[in-house]
C-alpha cells in the first residue's frame, strides 16, 4: 500500500441520508461514519436498497434527502457493481489496462501479477467473452490489487465465485482494512472476519406510506 494509514480521520460519512424510489421509502435517517480500517457489511432482504445505497455513496445515484460527506475531494474510491464494466472483445490484460489507466498507469508485469493474484494465470490473453461467469468477476476484482484506493464499494462481490475464491477475497478485504483502507460491501452470505460492522437496512426502512420531507429544492 502506497498511502500512509491515518486511523483517526474519517473517510466518508452520511448525515440523515434517505432514499425513496417509486414512492416507496427504502431507508430513512441513515447516519454512519466510515473510518480507515472499517469493514461495513450492508445487509437487507432483496429490494431493501443495498445497491442504491452503494451507488449513492459512489455518486452514481442522486442524493435527494440528506447528505453524503467525503473527508476531502481527493479520496479515491473503487466501485464494482452488478455490471462489471469489462469489454468482452478485449483480453483480461487489456481490460485491466484501461481500467487502471483511468486514474493512474500500470505496467504489464503489474497487471499480470494482479491477474495471477486472482487466480487467472494463463488467462491473461483470453478475450473476456470467453471466460466463465466467475472468471469475469475475478478480472474485475483484479483491479483492487492494481489501483490503490481508500474506499472499496463492492456490490455482492462473492457472486459466482467458487468457495476458494470467496476465502481468498475475504483475505484481501482483511489486508485492505489492516492497511488503513475501508470497505463497504453487500452480500447475502456472512463474512467470517472478527471486526465486521453490520449495517442492516431492514432497521432503517420506515413504515409504508410514510413520506420523506420535501425540502423544496433537490440536487438531481
Amino acid at each position, binding site marked *: 500500500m502506497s498511502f500512509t494509514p491515518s486511523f483517526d480521520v474519517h473517510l466518508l460519512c452520511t448525515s440523515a441520508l434517505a432514499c425513496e424510489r417509486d*414512492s416507496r421509502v427504502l431507508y430513512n435517517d441513515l447516519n454512519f461514519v466510515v473510518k480507515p480500517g472499517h469493514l461495513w457489511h450492508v445487509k437487507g432482504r432483496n429490494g431493501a436498497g443495498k445497491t442504491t445505497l452503494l451507488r449513492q455513496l459512489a455518486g452514481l445515484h442522486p442524493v435527494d434527502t440528506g447528505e453524503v460527506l467525503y473527508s476531502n475531494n481527493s479520496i479515491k474510491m473503487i466501485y464494482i457493481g452488478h455490471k462489471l464494466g469489462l469489454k468482452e472483445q478485449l483480453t483480461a490484460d487489456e481490460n485491466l489496462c484501461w481500467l487502471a489507466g483511468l486514474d493512474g498507469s500500470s505496467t504489464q508485469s503489474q497487471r499480470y501479477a494482479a491477474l495471477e493474484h486472482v487466480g487467472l494465470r494463463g488467462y491473461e490473453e483470453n478475450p473476456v467473452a470467453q471466460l466463465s461467469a466467475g472468471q469475469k468477476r475475478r478480472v474485475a476484482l483484479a483491479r483492487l490489487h492494481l489501483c490503490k484506493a481508500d474506499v472499496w464499494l463492492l456490490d455482492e462481490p462473492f457472486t459466482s465465485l467458487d468457495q476458494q475464491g470467496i476465502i481468498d477475497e475475504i483475505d484481501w478485504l482483511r489486508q485492505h482494512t489492516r492497511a488503513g483502507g475501508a470497505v463497504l460491501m453487500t452480500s447475502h452470505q456472512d463474512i467470517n472476519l472478527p471486526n465486521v460492522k453490520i449495517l442492516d437496512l431492514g432497521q432503517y426502512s420506515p413504515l409504508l*406510506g410514510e*413520506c420523506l420531507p*420535501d425540502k*423544496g*429544492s*433537490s440536487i*438531481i
Partner: protein
Amino acid sequence: MTESSWRMPRWFHQMGSPKWFYGFAGILQPWFAIAALGLLTWGAVWGLAFAPADYQQGNSFRIMYVHVPAAILSQSIFLGMAVAGAVGLVWKMKVAFMVARSCIAIGATFTAIALVTGAIWGKPTWGAYWVWDARLTSTLVLFFLYAGIMALNQAISERHIAGKATAILAIVGTINIPIIKYSVEWWNTLHQSSSFTLTAKPSMPADMYLPLLLTVLGSYCLFALVVLMRTRSQIVQSQSGASWLMQHRDITGA
C-alpha cells in the same frame, strides 16, 4: 438554500416549492380558462363573420386568425420551455423541470396547427399545399424538434431524468433555431425557387387586425392554462405522500 452558487430572491425560491406553486396555480387556473375561452371565441367569431375580406386573397385570408397565433406560439413555447429548463438546471428546481415538460405537448400541437393551416391556406393562395419555402421548412424542422423531445420523454421512465433530458435538449434546440432559420432562408434564396412570399401588409385596417390580436392573446392564455394543469398533475404524482398534499382539499375531497 445557502449552498446555491447564485443567490435567488425569496419569491423565486418560493415559486420553486411544489406546495406554493400548486396552490398559486390552482388560483390562476380558472381565470386563464375563462380568458382563453372568451378571447378565442370572440376573436374567431369576429374573424370569421365580421372582418372584411382581403382584396387579394378573398375569404381564405380568414385562416390568418388561427394560423398566425399558432405560428407565433409554436416558437415562443419552445423558448419558454428552454428558459424553464435552464432555470431548473441552474437552481436545481424540480418545478421548473415539470413546467418544461408540460410545454412539450401543447407546443407540438401549435406547431402542427401552424403547419396544417398554412398548408391548407397555401392551396387557394399558391395553388400547392407545400412548397420548400424557408419559413415553412424551418417550421417543419421545429416540429421535428418537438417530436424528438416528446419521444425522448416517453422513452425515459424516471421522472427527474426525463425532466433534465428535456431541459438539455430544449436549450440546445433553442440555440440552434436561429441558425436553422437563417440557413434555411439563405439556402432558399440561393436556389431562387419559389416566387411566392407571405403577404406582408404594412398597415391593416383595425377590423382585420384586432381579431388577430384577440386570438393571439387567447392562445397565450390557453397555453398557460394547459401548462398549469399539467404541472399541477405532475406535482401531485411526485408528492404523493407529502403531508401538505394529503391535507389539501383536493385530496380530502372537501
